């Protein structure tokens, strides 16, 4: 018997209408655990780097985390992986909700989609019965509307549905896959789903998910729940309210938005408004929020209430979570009422709540600058808010200028030309980033913004306070019960931070920065394999899940014998494999650059050295490609062999040799 996982993947070929159930190799579970890890292995094996995101041979993989469906609180994530039309790299967006546990209860770990359907279809997974069904009547329908219609037509109110909206059908590069309040929205995976002609996947399951050592497993689950309860009564002291609790930032219940409104940039990631937040705004926004949020809601088996049911007089009820409350508001320099209205509409169209407002603010900047004109934007309304609605409609339909903007800021800027490239100031790896513009370079964040491949900074960072505690006593108090750290040295970072001479960019040391980044990132890679929500694990300060209890939890669930070192090694293997996939796709050091204006004060030499040292620390070469030794040590020999055969390691040497010979020639001429 297989524990925690089902041991079966569904293989769907949309070109031929093929449906197969494939037993999986338990050996792969031992190496990559599950979720993102095994997704990466499948993408490496089956999608060669020449395959383009919209080729039929690109795979779209929906995977449940290995612990999804077990009683582990918060283990409910669906990890969707494919190749992104926007970054041209591996995209691995993740969503919470109820879909992944339902897939496990239906008897599957993953749904692997290949090919393209000639007409719009949806997939219906009902335990052992799988059908590819016509979806022509769902064409153009909203994501939530689609889910409702499918549940009605199947007469299965308990089915869980992941669907795309109009934006996905139209292959908007930042189209999302939506499931209730949860969306897998980064990297344009909704566009890949639309390209495959797949409108939705509905799933219903009534089978068991087993764990290997039930009593021990439950004891740990109960400890986790008890800790969550304790933390609700004892928020972290000395940090802003938004960082003091567990879960995703509790945006649906918190009213204090000083942290986001003052620290993040408004408009097209342009303006800091440090004085924006005041008592009057707080009162206004609280009234709007109290009227809009009808109920706080959760994902499967999780006590955190990160989501809200939103009621708006002009819209159907919808669900929201986290920072999407403010992304549109801040991009349009508007207020919360606008945010609640446009976010509901955008979610129905199925677009990413981070990227979309940035693209629209970018377009309006180009208009102000005269690069886009009335000819490009016929009938553009006068008010900024109305312009956002106008642009949203154009983008999701790929209508007029919307067709260009639908490719995201990076590609749109290059297509528009006329100096538009200069306005592309907040992308990394061709992808829009969270609008943050700060003062002095922070070495830890420099490394994370540069090298994160999940594109969102929130998917690499976590656990560390954002500012030093003012007094020694507070620092000591903070580290006293900081059991989550992988090693004691990490505590020194907090203990010393705030002493004279510990300002950025010289603090912390490169060595400490590498350790801190490695820890933060590793915990995310573990979550992405287990399917435990980052909000209970890698993201908040002092989470209930950490490197010291996760190995036992995973062992008790799966029956494998995994200790801390082994789990760390699995995470490192998964992380390195993804880096290798992207290196094989052509990602190099030159792509690992935070926007120039991300910090006002930059230190080019120091930054270069930081990256050098971090690459070395990770076992990557100077181009950020995992070395043969690193890959072989992780058992990824098949990867190193492939990279060698493709000449990936020779590139730099070849370039250098070419330059040298040029130099020699020119020197020869001089002589």
């Amino acid at each position: 018997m297989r524990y925690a996982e089902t041991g079966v993947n569904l293989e769907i070929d949309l070109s031929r209408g093929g449906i197969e159930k494939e037993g999986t190799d338990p050996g792969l579970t031992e190496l990559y655990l599950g979720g993102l890890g095994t997704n990466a292995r499948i993408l490496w094996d089956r999608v060669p780097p020449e395959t383009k995101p919209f080729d039929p041979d690109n795979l779209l993989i929906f995977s449940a985390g290995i612990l999804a469906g077990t009683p582990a609180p918060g283990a409910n994530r669906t990890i969707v992986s494919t190749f992104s039309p926007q970054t041209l790299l591996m995209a691995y967006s993740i969503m919470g909700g109820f879909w992944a546990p339902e897939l496990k209860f239906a008897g599957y770990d993953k749904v692997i989609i290949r090919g393209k359907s000639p007409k719009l279809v949806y997939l219906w997974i009902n335990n052992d019965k799988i059908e590819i069904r016509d979806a022509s009547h769902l064409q153009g329908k909203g994501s939530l509307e689609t889910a409702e219609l499918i549940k009605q037509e199947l007469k299965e109110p308990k089915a869980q549905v992941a669907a795309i909206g109009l934006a996905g059908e139209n292959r908007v590069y930042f189209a999302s896959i939506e499931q209730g309040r949860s969306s897998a929205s980064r990297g344009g995976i909704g566009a890949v789903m639309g390209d495959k002609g797949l409108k939705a996947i509905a799933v219903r399951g009534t089978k068991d998910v087993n764990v290997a050592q039930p009593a021990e497993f439950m004891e740990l689950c109960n400890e986790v729940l008890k800790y969550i309860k304790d933390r609700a009564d004892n928020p972290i002291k000395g940090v802003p309210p938004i960082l003091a609790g567990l879960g995703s930032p509790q945006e649906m219940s918190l009213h204090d938005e000083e942290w986001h409104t003052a620290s993040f940039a408004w408009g097209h990631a342009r303006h800091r408004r440090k004085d924006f937040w005041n008592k009057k705004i707080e009162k206004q926004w609280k009234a709007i929020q109290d009227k809009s949020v009808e109920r706080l809601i959760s994902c499967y088996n999780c006590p955190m209430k990160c989501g809200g049911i939103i009621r708006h007089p002009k819209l159907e009820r919808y669900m929201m979570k986290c920072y999407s409350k403010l992304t549109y508001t801040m991009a349009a320099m508007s207020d919360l009422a606008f945010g609640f209205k446009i976010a509901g509409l955008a979610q129905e169209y199925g677009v990413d709540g981070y990227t979309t407002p940035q693209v629209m603010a970018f377009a309006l900047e180009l208009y102000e600058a005269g690069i886009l004109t009335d000819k490009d934007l016929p009938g553009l309304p006068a008010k900024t808010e109305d312009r956002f609605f106008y642009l949203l409609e154009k983008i999701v339909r790929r209508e007029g200028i919307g067709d260009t903007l639908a490719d995201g800021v990076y590609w749109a800027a290059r297509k528009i030309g006329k100096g538009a490239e200069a306005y592309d100031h907040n992308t990394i790896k061709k992808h829009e980033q969270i609008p943050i513009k700060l003062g002095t370079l922070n070495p830890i964040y420099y490394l994370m913004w540069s090298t994160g491949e999940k594109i969102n900074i929130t998917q690499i960072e976590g656990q560390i306070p954002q500012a030093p505690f003012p007094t020694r006593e507070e620092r000591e108090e903070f580290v006293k019960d900081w059991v989550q750290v992988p090693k004691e040295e990490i505590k020194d970072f907090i203990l010393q931070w705030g002493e004279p001479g510990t300002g950025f960019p010289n603090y912390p040391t490169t060595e400490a920065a590498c350790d801190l980044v490695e820890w933060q990132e590793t915990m995310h890679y573990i979550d992405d394999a287990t399917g435990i929500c980052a909000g209970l694990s890698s993201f908040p300060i002092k989470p209930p899940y950490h490197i010291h209890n996760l190995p036992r939890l995973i062992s008790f669930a799966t029956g494998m014998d995994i200790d801390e070192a082994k789990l760390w090694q699995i995470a490192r293997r998964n992380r390195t494999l993804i880096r290798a996939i992207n290196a094989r796709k052509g990602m190099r050091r030159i792509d690992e650059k935070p926007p120039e204006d991300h910090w006002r004060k930059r230190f080019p030499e120091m930054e270069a050295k930081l990256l050098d040292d971090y690459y070395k620390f990770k076992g990557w070469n100077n181009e950020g490609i995992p070395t043969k030794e690193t890959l072989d040590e992780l058992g990824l020999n098949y990867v190193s062999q492939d990279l060698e055969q493709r000449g990936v390691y020779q590139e730099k040497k070849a370039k250098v040799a070419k330059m040298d010979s040029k130099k020699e020639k020119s020197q020869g001429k001089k002589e």
Partner: protein
Amino acid sequence: MKKVKVIKIDVDKCNGCRACEAICSAFHSTPKYSSTNPERSRIRVLFDPLKDVYVPVLAGDYTEAECNGRDLYTIDGKVYDECSFCRASCPSRKLFKDPDSDLPLKCDMCEEEPPLPEPLCVQWCLSDALTYEEREEEGEEEEKKPGEMEIGLESLVKKHGAKKVKDALARISKG
């Protein structure tokens, strides 16, 4: 005096996480906690987020008859499904039946020795949508309740008649 165990349900506090379903099904699996399957749970959250309807319902008795009519409740402007508040395992819906055997499921308040301080669905509901209380009521202490197998057999007897069940049992035990 007899002791009455009460699970109080506050639908306004339910966050729809279904932890109650997960833990209930795990507790009632054999060996205990070895498997999870909400379909085997004796508590279900009937929910429809887009109508803001969240109703945790605990499985009550099995009934072999369908209701003659249906009721629709409107509370605070929200319309609740006709069977939203009903605890019965009955022929008109799939709820509260074991997915493999189709046998009815019934909440036993997590009875075990030594007794738990509270049923597990209550313990795992950190939102306090489910809370527990015991109170004394006039009347005789109940006789020992029939076990799970007896409840199952009884419903089989009701459905197929005692003779058929007896024959089937004899056949199975021979095999």
